[in-house]
């Protein structure tokens, strides 16, 4: 049964940066682009498990820090290897607070 969980204040996610969220054994990356839009993805690159929250963000793309795979944060799709996809999580902001639906 999914439910919305309060994560943190939106200000705690750096612009063009990311934070790692741990929920039991689940690791989710929360990313914020330059327009202050946020995205939530499983925090592992489908290529070799690179930690995506350490990647560089440009537009709606995060580049994996290990071998430079570009992941589209909106769709979770690895741009050059479209077969591979990162799990996305529902995320929302209300009154400047970030919530995850898990």
């Amino acid at each position, binding site marked *: 049964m999914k*439910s919305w*969980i309060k*994560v*943190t204040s939106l200000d*705690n996610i*750096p*612009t*063009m*940066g990311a*934070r*790692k*969220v*741990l*929920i*039991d054994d689940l690791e989710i990356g*929360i990313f914020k682009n*330059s327009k202050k839009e946020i995205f939530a993805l499983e925090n592992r690159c489908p290529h*070799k*498990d*690179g*930690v995506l929250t*350490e*990647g*560089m*963000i*440009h*537009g709606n*793309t995060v*580049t994996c*820090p*290990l071998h*430079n795979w*570009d992941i589209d944060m909106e769709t979770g799709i690895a741009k050059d290897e479209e077969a591979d996809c990162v799990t996305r999580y529902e995320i929302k902001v209300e009154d400047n607070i970030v919530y*995850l639906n*898990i």
Partner: protein
Amino acid sequence: MKEKLLVIGNGMSALRTIEELLSHTDKKYEISIFGEEPHVNYNRIMLSYLLSREKTFGDTILNTQEWYDNNEVTLHTDNKISQINRDKKVILNSNNEEFAYDKLLIATGSVPFIPTTFGSSLNNVLGFRTKEDVDNILNTISDEKKAVVVGGGLLGLEAAYGIAKHGIKTLLIHRSANIMSQQLDATAGKLLQKKLETLGIEFRLNTTVDKIDGDNSVESVTLSDGEVVDANIVVFSTGISPNKTIASDCGLSTNKAIIVNDYLQTEDENIFAIGECCEHDGKTFGLVAPLFEQAKICAKKLADVETEGYVGSINSTRLKISGVDLFSAGQYICDEDSEELILLDEKVGIYKKLVIKGDYLVGIILYGDTLDASWYLKLLKEKTDISDLRVKLLFGKASLGDSGHGEDSIEAMSDDEEICGCNGITKGAVIEGIKCNNLKTIGEVKACTKAGASCGSCVALVEQVLVSTLGDEYQDVTPEGICDCCTSTHKEIKDNIAVNDYENVYEVFKNLKWSNEEGCRLCRPAVNYYLLVKYNDDKYKNDLRSRLVNDRVYANIQKDGTYSVVPRIWGGVTNAKDLRAMADVADKYNVPTIKFTGGQRLDMLGIKKEDLAPMWKDLNDAGFVSGQAYAKGLRTVKTCVGNTWCRFGTQDAMQIGIDIEKMTWGSWTPHKFKIAVSACPRNCAEATIKDIGVIGVDSGWEIHFAGNGGLKVRVTDFLTKVKTDEELFHYIKALMQFYREDAYYLERTAHWVERVGIDYVKDAIVKDDAKRDFYAKGFDESQKHAQIDPWKDSVDSGFTQEFEPIVLERMA
């Protein structure tokens, strides 16, 4: 008043002569060219690629209409010249129009020789010589019928390959037992045949065409052994006949072809002949390299430039079939006076045969591995005494030694070795072309130097030269911009930043019309670096989000997402107290692995990101700063024990290393930067594979530059010798600053020096006192605000708060 130069023929020899002529003078002649075909000059050697559709006609065009226009050369296409009137000095076309000449160049080439057999005048019996032939072949071949190619020479095989590539059953008929019997011995011929059979070509050897049957066009072909083949096309490639009629008709001497002297002049001093239609010293020529050699001499003669005259050429051949590497030159069959060296591996498909007469190489066949072709050809052409090389000769140039430096074959080639056999272009000429004209792409190199512009088989070599000349700049950039976001090169970006003011990378992207306003992982760190080096840390805020992970979090990311932490150990010299402090930190954070690095540091591996900040704090408290083992910046200064302990040491390497590290730490550079100091030429600190290598001698210090110990080892170049420590420091500052300002982002000193040349660095830093002072001062200025420990700074500024994971619990 210009003289009138008319050219009969619009092919490769004609145009090469005109290009050469224009390089000497564009004042002497008013030039008109008459071509039978409706096209501008195209690359006939590429016809096989046109046939296989691996290239388009556009790819094969050598001189565009624009070229003719710009050079004021008048081109008459579809204009067949039928007569020369030497008394009136005019030529006539088939409509009897007259054109007057002062000088005339006959470059009529040749026509395919189609033997008169029964049925050889039927439709669909074709040659393989022109664009029109290719179009006709492509329009005729069909899935349901076989195609027959007659003649197993170079062109015949290329034609058969081009047809078979379309999935057509192709039968190649050759009258002797081995294909390419003019260039290959039986072993190589068989290897090639086997390979071509896998590409879909069937062979019938020791046979010829008896007759061709059909009403209007080909329906079947009967071979001399009685076999009947259903086919709808026969392509003859059984040799060429020089087009000499126009010359013989006007009374010029001809034999097999039009007879010319060493200056390509016929017996009429105003009429020249060149290429396949001419005969020199009893020989005719069908390959492009000799034709281009002739063009050079003919052009000089026309331009009244002194020339030694043509002395004939050694024919060498490369087969232009994708995936088949084949080269042959000289006398390829052994006779009584010669001997042969042979290497054969049928399974791998490699065959090398060298024919030797006395102490000289006289013949070459290379199949499957043609890497050393130009080296062998050079030995052959220059008649080099090979007696000393003999035992290793067959194994190629790399086997001669000096391979410990990790050089690849192109680097091992000397500058006077030929890269492009067709055009006679040496490696040195390609490099010079690249440097003088700032060439960046294969296309530009082809257009400017002609290397790779004819048969194209050397393009891979040309590319290697380009890569080794440009270094990272070539590898990292697409032919256009430095990444997909832009069309600007590193140089253009740097030049633009030099003259404009910017506050951040995004303003640069906007001004230079990036397709993507936020750039990408390639361009953003590069532009961030260029801004930083222009403004220094006090006037430009080094943008955290424009740095890749290691540079951003001041640690090296590992494959599992943990980090490594390397504190600075000045000059690689430590003590028991510091080691104890580090051990305490390692205990406290349960560091799983501690490793000595190549740069004389201790690397603590497997650190969780959230442990970085507290660990840094503990290390700071114990007196350490960041070792910047992650940085595109000064990493380490490695030392030997020097004269403090060593009985051979001539200088205090440890203390000087510490002093250099205290002076240079914190500096951002285009790529990582390593220094080493050895106290004597035994060089225990391995200084000659560092960016700067300092080696102590009795009278002072030697300064070496641009070494690299990575993937491809590069030994430093010796720069200069200085007497005092102060001079040494001054030179190091100047060198680092020159590199910081001049090199492209992610270009190591080794690649930079390979690109710009060590003399460029010497001219600025060694020979020019004012420039050296200027750069050293620039370095001092940049260091004023750079020597801030990023560990302490990022803890104090609160940046490391984002290193903490957000830990949640699921709702019950």
